[in-house]
């Protein structure tokens, strides 16, 4: 995850938005992994290995790849509940993400979080939050910490387009602006909050909401991962330079239903619309074609990448499937970080081992 510098000719730099061919190929590689991982999750859900809600990122892989790749390991990322691939992008191994989806002890949250609550403090992936917009003030708090300690870090906060209508979003934007917090707020704008088109629930466009708080706002085509990567490279530099928060409206599109329990198309968007986007706005196909045209990719390499991605997804599945369920005594563990020596904390009347740590 380093900012690269283009060394090739001007023309090629333009085609690749100034991103080096190596980085571009890496982004392709990343997105293929995300796609194959999510397809494997879809399959696992279909055969009952994954329960509950499961929100797939298929179609939006460019956001995970293009926004996170320009960041550093020491930067924080926080997201909502469509976050499998962002967690991988931030460094959590696919097998630990898949095991979490399976509710297994080797999951990145020990099987206690599930699809919507992926966490890894070492990788600085701060979740995984299930209440729309709930993670936005948390991101501001993480940024507040960074500023309080005067560290050269930042936080990137992902949210869906529907989150910008929550009160907490506005309160967090205002405080971030007032206190110059080192945060990049990213609206992953797939045009629909579940089944409600954004245009039906907002009179003004998304970027205006941030602009009204005095936060600079950028609009990016998230299906073009190179454009996204280039933009986030610049924005991260601005935040690090102490310019305060940044806001980005990343235009993307969800190829699948809102969750595994929801239809892909139907009353809120037509099958024709989805088919058209899948055909013309697939971030993987767009980057592939760009690299083909720039003569920076051949068919054999592409197939090799894809085979590796499929193998990695399958390996994650196999790991998760073989992993153990949490022990029953995990039930009461970690409700509290500190078990006070005095008094009672649990009131269910059940027999419990003592969970003092």
């Amino acid at each position, binding site marked *: 995850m380093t900012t690269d510098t283009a060394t090739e000719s001007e023309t090629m730099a333009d085609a690749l938005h100034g991103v080096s061919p190596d980085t571009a190929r890496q982004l392709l590689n990343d997105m293929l992994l995300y796609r194959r991982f999510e397809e494997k999750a879809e*399959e696992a859900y*279909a*055969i*009952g*290995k994954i329960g509950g809600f499961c929100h797939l990122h298929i179609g939006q892989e460019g956001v995970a790849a293009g926004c996170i790749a320009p960041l550093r390991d020491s930067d924080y990322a926080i997201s909502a509940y469509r976050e499998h691939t962002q967690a991988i992008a931030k460094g959590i191994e696919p097998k630990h993400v898949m095991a979490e989806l399976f509710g297994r002890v080797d999951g990145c949250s020990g099987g206690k979080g599930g699809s919507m609550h992926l966490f890894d403090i070492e990788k600085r992936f701060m979740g995984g939050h299930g209440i729309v917009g709930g993670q936005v003030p948390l991101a501001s708090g993480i940024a507040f910490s960074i500023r309080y300690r005067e560290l050269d870090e930042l936080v990137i906060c992902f949210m869906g387009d529907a989150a910008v209508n929550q009160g907490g979003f506005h309160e967090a934007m205002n405080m971030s602006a007032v206190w110059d917090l080192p945060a990049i707020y990213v609206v992953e704008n797939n045009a629909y909050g579940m089944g409600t088109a954004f245009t039906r629930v907002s009179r003004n466009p998304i970027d205006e909401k941030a602009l009204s708080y005095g936060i600079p706002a950028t609009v990016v085509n998230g299906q073009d991962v190179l454009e996204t990567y280039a933009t986030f490279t610049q924005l991260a530099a601005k935040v690090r330079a102490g310019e305060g928060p940044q806001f980005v409206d990343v235009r993307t599109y969800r190829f699948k239903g809102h969750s595994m329990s929801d239809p892909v198309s139907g009353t809120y968007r037509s099958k024709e619309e989805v088919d058209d986007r899948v055909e013309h706005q697939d971030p993987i196909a767009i980057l592939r074609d760009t690299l083909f045209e720039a003569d920076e990719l051949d068919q054999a390499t592409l197939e090799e990448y894809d085979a590796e991605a499929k*193998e990695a997804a399958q390996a994650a599945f196999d790991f998760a*499937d073989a992993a153990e*369920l949490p022990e029953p005594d995990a039930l009461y563990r970690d409700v509290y970080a500190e078990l006070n020596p005095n008094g009672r904390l649990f009131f269910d009347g059940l027999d419990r081992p003592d969970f003092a740590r």
Partner: protein
Amino acid sequence: MATKVHMEALSPTMEEGQIVKWVKAEGDEVSSGDILAEIETDKATMELVARGDGILRAVLLDAGDTAPVGAVIGVIAEADEDIDDLVGDAGGAEAATADSAGAPADSDGAVSDGAESGADGPAEHTPEPDNSKSDRDMEAPAATGSGRVKASPLARRLAEEAGIDLSAVSGSGPGGRIVKADVEEAAASPPAPAAPLAAAATPNTQPTAREVSRPTPPPAVWSDAGATEGFEDVKVSQMRKTIARRLTESLSPVPHFFLTIEVDMARVMEARKSVNAAVEKDGDRVSVNDFVLRATGAALRKHPACNAAWHDDTIRRFDHVHVGVAVAVEDGLITPVIRHADRKGLVQISREVKELAGRAREKRLKPEEYTGSTFSISNLGMFGIREFTAIINPPEAGILAVGAIEEIPVVVDGELAVRPRMRVTMSCDHRVIDGATGAQFLQTLRAMLEEPAAILI
């Protein structure tokens, strides 16, 4: 890279699926997203799509067959890839591995059985919990003629400790509740005469205080020395759970009433002999129950009011007559359905019953073979049961409980005679069937069995 084709959960509640047909055949080239097969779920026929590219190398479940969600039913792989290991996973092997079908283990660790696996867990022998202390604590004080004694929990405990019979103490608390002060006062006054109950129970010993306030065991008539107590917890199978649920659902909301009629079976027994003599060469052999089934089908056709179901705002009267026949199987029972029982001959009914009952015992019935009945019959005659009542199988409105044929003395035309008689008890859903309606149906049934010529055709 090879890809397993799984039976997928194509509806939220689907636990198993049946192959309607394979759209792709072994050897066909397939790509991710191609439709491989049509699957009958518990709700509808759905399409199963490929999740990998290559050749459909193996088809492990035939059309018409059923597999639990998660079972491997095929393999997609390259033409030259070794898939032996994957093919070995077939037959629901994956689904049988505990919780893999997505049903999480219950909190007590019990794992639900695959619908058809029949693999009930081993019976668990649970040691008797040591709850003797709490039992004692919960024990009520001696009942008295005047009924329940009102006392505070503290007063009860103190009285027990002091050996005071609370029934002899008057309470000063609200509503005469005995409280601590009352017990203390009673303890300070001279001891009351021994309570009659305790005195009678142990006439030769001075009753101790403790015994007065607790029920006295009956005098020992035989020794239970050496006898032990214990129990065995037999794990409840999926089928037993379903039976428990269905029957409870029936008895609680369905207002049952029962009608019993006695049928003279002499003519049926004669007819059965001659029919069997004629069909034996074809390997057929009809039973008395087949006659009952045949007659029931015909009688229901004449009494559509009994071939009906309660639907809150409507009573649904069925055009078809599908009769369920309760079959005892290991760990339960199941009711395979003779469809259009009113339109089938005796021999055909006999063959179907045999075939279905056989497969029922092997737990190989398909859902449509045990669902959709409009009326049911349960026969326990073979066990020597003379008469019993059966619980209605909802949403049906009636069920016949058929007893054994017994030679009993009856009065025929004013003379005492020994006749083969059979008792049939009909359980009726009173919301659908009234007493007279059910009685008329039973009259028709009896007439048909007593003059079986009409049902022999």
